[in-house]
């Protein structure tokens, strides 16, 4: 209404017209979305915390799960995730530089900084895909017991984890992998693991230098914080409960330990990766708009600022995911 035009006096701040919070409608709506999205991620991370506290003494140790770096062999815990974190922070920086250049109406600078941001986002999503692939493919292989617990194998000579292939016996068996190309009536079937339970058990009995590591984390003493190593006799007793061979991780089985760990890994990093992907797409749209000169004509680059907020939020979430999934 005409009569409520803000005059700048205290009483009329909320009377309509003008921006009482000093931010435009679009920016406020972006903040609304970000706060609600932050609560969604908090819900997921709180659920992760719930499951973890429930199984606090058997939860997998992230350092032992994410130990790979592309193109390198060996055991490098944390390095790759740290690299991913740095890439995301870096792309956050180029984004905020784009916003800054937008304030100064420097079109070419905005184009370049947006471009670098998109590249950073793409590298991050690619890295995450690689992490997923590595996690799904698995590492050493393990035995799942009837109770759904995981038994991993350790070489007592070196103290290092042992691959199933290192000690399992190869025994002739009738069961072969079914493939759709070999059967007219084939619809689907469980893929066979590389070794059967019998082969692993026989190999275990034949190799006295192999023992079992359970999910339980030692609570006291010298080995506190490490997974429990069983003696040979305890291990042989445990193997009586073996039900299947697990290689890699999916939503149902997880060779690294508690299956909930894999579920939350897929869910939380997947949800975050989805955010990064959509962020890259939105950034691309805005990037082309900048190139076409849309915001130059409009007279301000507030759109860049708004997608910038979203992009920083994605970075912010990753900081928390990084801490609660990989560090703590």
């Amino acid at each position, binding site marked *: 209404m005409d009569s409520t035009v803000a005059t700048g006096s205290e009483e009329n701040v909320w009377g309509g017209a003008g921006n009482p919070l*000093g*931010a435009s409608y679009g920016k406020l709506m972006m903040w609304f979305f970000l706060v609600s999205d932050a609560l969604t991620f908090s819900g997921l991370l709180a659920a992760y915390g719930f499951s973890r*506290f*429930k199984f606090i003494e058997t939860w997998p140790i992230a350092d032992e799960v994410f130990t790979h770096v592309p193109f390198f062999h060996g055991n490098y815990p944390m390095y790759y995730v740290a690299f991913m974190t740095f890439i995301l*922070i870096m792309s956050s920086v180029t984004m905020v530089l784009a916003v800054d250049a937008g304030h100064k109406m420097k079109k070419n600078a905005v184009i370049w900084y947006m471009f670098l941001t998109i590249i950073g986002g793409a590298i991050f999503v690619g890295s995450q895909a690689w992490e997923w692939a590595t996690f799904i493919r698995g590492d050493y292989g393990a035995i799942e017991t009837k109770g759904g617990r995981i038994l991993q194998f350790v070489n007592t000579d070196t103290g290092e984890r042992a691959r199933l292939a290192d000690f399992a016996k190869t025994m002739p068996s009738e069961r072969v992998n079914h493939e759709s190309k070999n059967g007219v009536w084939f619809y689907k079937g469980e893929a066979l693991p590389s070794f059967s339970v019998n082969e692993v058990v026989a190999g275990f009995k034949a190799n006295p230098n192999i023992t079992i590591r359970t999910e339980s984390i030692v609570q006291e003493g010298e080995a506190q914080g490490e997974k429990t190593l069983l003696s040979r006799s305890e291990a042989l007793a445990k193997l009586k409960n073996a039900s299947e061979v697990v290689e890699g991780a999916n939503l149902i089985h997880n060779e690294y330990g508690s299956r909930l760990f894999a579920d939350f890994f897929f869910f939380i990093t997947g949800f975050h990766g989805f955010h990064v992907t959509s962020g890259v797409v939105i950034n691309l749209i805005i990037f082309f708009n900048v190139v076409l000169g849309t915001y130059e004509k409009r007279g301000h680059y507030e759109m860049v*600022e708004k997608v*910038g907020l979203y992009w*920083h939020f994605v970075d912010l979430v990753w900081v928390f995911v990084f*801490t609660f999934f990989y560090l*703590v």
Partner: protein
Amino acid sequence: MAHDHKLEIFRGLLKFKSNTQKIWGVLIFLTFVTIIEVALGIIKPESLTHSSFLGMKILNWIFIILTLVKAYYISWDFMHLRDEKTSLRRAIVWTPVFLVAYLAFITLVEADYIYGVFKNGFVTWNF
């Protein structure tokens, strides 16, 4: 749009000449914090993992506090909350802080209870 930026961080300890400079300064700080986190995560000093404060390992306290520090600088300087009006900033920050603190408290306490049930109850699950 606020074109004037507040150019000091660490409560005025560090002042920058331009917004661009401040951005690079914050990047250096965030990188430094991340490097500390990763180094601690790899080394896992025994003095920090074998001692606890309020039921949590000191190392984990350090990780969580450093995370909050990083979150502060990302939202304050990259998302420009430092330049927003106080009322908007408080609405954005305190709403999730209260809700998340409550949610985390409830879920973690309940999970700890279930942990006790699994440990001391008459249910065999770890076999």
